């Protein structure tokens, strides 16, 4: 993805100069290694801060809902599928958004990398295929493929499915990817072990809702966990409440989630909540042949009733 930064600046500058859009949403370099900050530019001069690298894991489609302006957004494959879902769900109009498509070779996993080196990481730099990590005492070189976020290593839609302009040529899609190997492993466990597995997985949760808020699909004016009359879910740290928040949120994203990984990336305590969302993605795939956000012309599988919807489980 070398060279994307310059192209993004060029495109953004042009779009603003020609008043094609009122605002461009992209990333600027963060103050921490492996972090970038979503930002916006409204003047051609301001586009100089825009950049792109393998730390742009937050889903910018999250910043589009309910916007009144004409907005350009830098979107990788997964983000573009969320934009499709937004359009289908009437959260933004197609002609309101100018999609600057980024063919993406994946985002790196900052938690994984932190666990692979000793000492505080001071700087991370990258080339097309390598990641260099500097601590006070050492420099380590990784193959980018070794340190990708899990959702990126399993990605089968790296290229934007919808775009008004592309930052670069399409990249090769990965084939023969088994997206659900880890889900199947859990499915094979005994019920008691499954229960314990999720208990352990969710125990660090502090109900900060970073996962929910980073998710472009979670746009309800009042989330079910914020309701008080009636109160569906307790707001404290009771383990049953924490579990309910996570699995119910996964259910609400079923058939809509594109596995962009923003939820896991945002989580301050490193919870792998994609195990829940991907199980539902697997079910939608296997039972309805459905993949979220691939086309503007199809309503999501869980949105419509078809005569041939799977019904074998209903006795």
């Amino acid at each position, binding site marked *: 993805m070398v060279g994307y930064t310059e192209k993004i600046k060029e495109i953004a500058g042009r779009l603003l100069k020609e008043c094609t859009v009122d605002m461009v949403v992209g990333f600027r370099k963060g103050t921490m290694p492996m972090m970038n900050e979503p930002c916006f530019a409204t003047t051609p001069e301001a586009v100089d801060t825009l950049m792109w690298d393998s730390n742009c894991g937050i889903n910018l489609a999250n910043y589009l809902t309910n916007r009144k302006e004409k907005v350009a957004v830098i979107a990788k494959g997964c983000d573009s599928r969320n934009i499709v879902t937004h359009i289908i769900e009437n959260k933004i109009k197609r002609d309101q958004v100018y999609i600057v498509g980024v063919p993406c070779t994946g985002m790196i996993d900052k938690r994984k990398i932190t666990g692979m080196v000793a000492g505080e990481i001071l700087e991370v730099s990258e080339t097309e295929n390598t990641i260099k990590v500097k601590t006070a005492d050492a420099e380590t070189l990784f193959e980018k493929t070794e340190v990708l976020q899990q959702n990126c290593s399993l990605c089968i839609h790296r290229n934007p499915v919808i775009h008004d302009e592309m930052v670069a040529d399409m990249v090769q899609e990965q084939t023969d990817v088994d997206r659900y190997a880890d889900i199947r492993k859990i499915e094979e466990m005994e019920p008691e072990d*499954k229960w314990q597995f999720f208990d352990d997985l969710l125990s660090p949760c502090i109900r900060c809702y970073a996962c929910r808020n980073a998710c472009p699909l979670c746009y309800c004016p009042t989330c079910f966990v914020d309701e008080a009359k009636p109160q569906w879910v*307790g707001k404290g740290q009771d383990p049953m409440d924490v579990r309910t928040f996570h699995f119910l949120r996964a259910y609400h994203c079923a058939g809509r989630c594109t596995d962009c990984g923003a939820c896991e990336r945002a989580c301050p305590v490193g919870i792998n909540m994609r195990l829940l969302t991907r199980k539902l993605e697997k079910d939608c795939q296997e039972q309805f042949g459905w993949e979220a956000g691939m086309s503007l012309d199809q309503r999501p599988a869980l949105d419509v009733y078809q005569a041939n919807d799977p019904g074998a489980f209903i006795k």
Partner: protein
Amino acid sequence: MELMGVEPDRLHFSWISSAESTKFVNVVKEVTEKVKAIGPNNHFIKDTAKVA
């Protein structure tokens, strides 16, 4: 739900019209037997909140 640890025999789905009383009786019997065979449920239960 199964993924999270609910035993498969604890959750059942059935379409029964109010005119299908025999089917209703049979389904209720079957579900009751299956659930009794697994034993009491001790998951997905919240008493008063477990907190500090």
